[in-house]
């Protein structure tokens, strides 16, 4: 049962950040693997989905794995992760919408533009708001975009590191234009979420083993299998 559940996982992700830092572009790169030089500013919040596949090795060799996840916890085929992505608008007038989307997100990607100093201030604002308002389980990833414009860089990686270590956040630099690091960003998030899931499942399972209760789920699962239609 554990294996079956871990074969397909679904996570909710929200993108936050100043307008024009390239949130929509990053998502577009991830979902469609394309880039528009001139794209319209987002209205409200857009909804997109994308799935990625994690191999068994991806998970086992991840730095997040503290050896509590062993080779037989995971299916040999690996795990498919589906992301439900809410891409929010960075414009000020839509700020009040954000809470609705980060409230129960599994991960929040906070984007700034490495060439715009003010965009990091906005990113810090979001981090603080999330610390206060969001679910404690929500993983926060601070992401600098437009890595291709390294020449015009105003924000050094060290400035950010200082900040992320205080809040214990993940830290990425990507380019939506070239696609550099974009897939790695989402893959890392996926691995982190999957391992987190497996760990909490593990805990559940061990408590189950200790109690003498019959696992009803096991039974219902079998019966539903019997009743599956052939179509």
């Amino acid at each position, binding site marked *: 049962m554990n294996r079956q559940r871990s074969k397909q996982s679904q996570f909710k992700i929200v993108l936050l950040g100043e307008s024009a830092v390239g949130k929509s572009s990053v998502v577009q790169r991830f979902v469609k693997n394309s880039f528009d030089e001139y794209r319209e500013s987002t209205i409200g919040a857009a*909804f997109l989905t994308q799935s990625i596949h994690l191999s068994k090795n991806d998970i086992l060799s991840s730095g997040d794995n503290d050896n509590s996840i062993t080779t037989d916890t995971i299916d040999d085929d690996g795990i498919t992760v589906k992301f*439900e992505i809410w891409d929010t608008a960075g414009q000020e*007038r839509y700020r*009040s919408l954000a809470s609705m989307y980060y409230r129960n997100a599994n991960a929040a990607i906070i984007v700034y533009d490495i060439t715009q100093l003010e965009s990091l201030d906005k990113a810090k604002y979001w981090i603080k708001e999330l610390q206060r308002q969001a679910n404690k389980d929500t993983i926060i990833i601070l992401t600098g975009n437009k890595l291709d414009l390294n020449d015009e860089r105003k924000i050094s990686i060290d400035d950010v590191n200082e900040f992320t270590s205080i809040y214990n956040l993940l830290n990425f630099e990507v380019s939506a234009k070239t696609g550099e690091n974009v897939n790695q960003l989402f893959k890392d998030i996926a691995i982190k979420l999957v391992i987190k899931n497996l760990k909490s499942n593990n805990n559940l399972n061990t408590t189950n083993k200790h109690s003498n209760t019959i696992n009803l789920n096991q039974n219902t699962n079998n019966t539903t299998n019997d009743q599956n239609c052939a179509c």
Partner: protein
Amino acid sequence: MKPRILGKSKPVPDTPSPSVSTPSSTIPSPPPQSIQCPICNIPMSSLIKLNNHIDSQHLNQRQSIPRNHYIKSNKCHKCNNSSITNCCICGLTFCSNHINRGKVNSLLEFDKNGIWCDCCIDCINKLPNIISPINNLTDEFKELRNKRLINESLKNLLLDRRLDKVFNWMLNNVINEESFINFEKSLVNWNNQGNCQCCLNTFTWLNRRHHCRICGESVCGDLQKGCSMIVPLGMLFELLIVDKDISIQERDRIRNLLKKDKFGLRICKECKRRVLNKKVFLLDKQQFDDEMVKFFNIWKLISKKLESEDLSFIKDDLENKLYVNYFNKLDKLIKDIDLFINKGNCKNDEIRILTNLKNVIIKFIKINLPILRKSQNVKLEKERQKLQNIINDRPKLSKRELREKRDKLIVLNEQKFLVTEMYETFKKQRRFDDLKTLDINLEDIEKEINQLNLELGDETFTI
């Protein structure tokens, strides 16, 4: 309610009246079996012939009785009641209490061969021995009548027995085409002679001979004439069970069997009068009783409940709903009673009972409904006050807060529109998994919009 069967019923006298009407005057005319002229005693074959005979043979004699001794007066000689009938012997006037009839000849004497004249009782008593004008045939008549009655009730009994046979057959047999036809013919031998026993018409190839299955007599089949009709077995069954004790299961079983009305028995008008009307009457009465009891029980139940409540105070919406519901039920009861009356199946006394019940209910409503209305108004006013207080108590929003909240409301409405559009697109693309997520989001948006509306109150659009 079943439809009324075989026309409107009247209470059926168990004793059929004899076919010739009873004599009306104090002196009974000879019983019908032996009609003869009272003047000359010649036997007559029918009353019409007797009338003709008297007109032609004896009318002249009437003139031969002198009337010149008649005394003009408008008072009875014996009791002063008003009267104008003269005694043909003494000539005085008498009222109907003091006058009788006797046979008198032209010499103003009682005479067996005289003609019937008005005579006062004094004159009759004075001359009792010459000839008693009172030829008392009452006993003879009673005897004849009894014989006839016994015959009639025997016949009815016979017909009743046949109906019972039909009933038992329905209970105990497989009902199919073959068994039905066999049974139908086994009930009574069919009389193939004579005219229609109801309308006396002769049968022709146009007016075919039919047979009543209960009495076996020949009758016309034309429905318009109504000499006979085919009664569906289902209908007949409903009639036959009225005076029988039969379990509900059994009853429903037979009802089911006969539901299709495939078979029916031809029954003549005469048999209907003799044995079926009785049952129709019983059935109607039963149905009326059932319905009446139902109406009355509903009325009792609701009025008792309402009387036990204090209508002058309504605690909450639930209580209000309860009360209103009671009155609605009473209203419906009145309508049901009206409907039942208007079906036209009720007899006068039944209508009177129902109308009385109806009036009692109407009176009850007229007294109690205004009380409820008043307390409803009180409750409404209280709620209005409360709401007003809430509005007054609500903290005034600062101008900035107000603007922010209004802006948020606009943004939320935009987003609602966007997500709804997305929802439609996804539906077309059959992305059913994602529809659920959007659905949840729409709910969230709706919730926030409602919350904002509540906070803004009537300040949503004012500046």
